[in-house]
């Protein structure tokens, strides 16, 4: 399966990819974006793909376009509808969580995190999707 990881830190994108693989996901391709705008471009380009993206993981606190703005823009543009989005972020306060869920996030994980937490939050979403 293909996944999109959005984080302004290349280190964190690698750490998240490793955690997803440790969770048992068979990732054939991992697209990477360093902010929400790059992620929107990736989703626009991916429209109509024979093997579409099946999981999006996003940070919130990023330059250019943050993760909440990305969620809202994705919803407004109807990009990758039905694809689960999991936020992985240091912003754990309730206003951020509520806004993310309202904008379409189905999972929320606070940094620091363990691979077990990623597995527990991500796998159920993929079985439903």
């Amino acid at each position, binding site marked *: 399966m293909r996944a999109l990881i959005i984080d*302004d*830190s*290349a*280190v*964190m994108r*690698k*750490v998240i990819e*490793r955690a997803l693989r440790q969770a048992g996901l068979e990732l054939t391709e991992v697209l990477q974006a360093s902010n929400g705008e790059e992620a929107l471009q990736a989703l626009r380009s991916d429209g109509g793909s024979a093997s579409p993206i099946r999981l999006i993981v996003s940070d919130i*606190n*990023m*330059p250019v376009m943050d993760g909440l703005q990305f969620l809202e823009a994705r919803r407004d543009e109807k990009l990758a509808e039905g694809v689960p989005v999991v936020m992985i*972020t*240091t*912003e*754990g*306060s309730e*206003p951020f969580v509520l806004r993310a869920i309202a904008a379409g996030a189905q999972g929320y994980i*606070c*940094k*620091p*995190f*363990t691979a077990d937490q990623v597995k527990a939050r991500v796998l159920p979403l993929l079985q439903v999707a």
Partner: protein
Amino acid sequence: MLGNGGVSVSEERIARLDSAVSEVFEMMLDRSCGPVDAEIGIHERITARIQFSGAITGECLVYASQTVAQIAAEALLGTVSETCDPMVEDAVGELCNMIAGGWKSKLGSSEAVCLISVPAVTRDGTLGFRDEFGTSYHRCYSFQGNVFGVALAFQS
């Protein structure tokens, strides 16, 4: 000023910082990490800074020697990195981000209503505290004998 259980507010904030640092290293690097009495030389230091704005205004700094930063980056990534690998700076920035975020999340709900910036990282060792903040804490930590520093300065 005393907080919960007769513990001073300063002690509470330092305990929260210790807890935040320990959690980041346990969960993300699979390493134990605790406070130590030590000094960090200012030469060849990599410093990452996160700024708080809102109910708390201030900043969190994480600083380490090039060698310790590289060891931390390798532990975080699970791979070997090169001396001037930009991933080392990125890793120190992410450690600072997670420590600052973890410390913020342990504050009371009214204090935690603040935003944190993306990390800024420098190798020149001159990125220091701003003088305008009223409270500051400096603390050194060690994981497997590798020492690094964390500093907090803020007004609330």
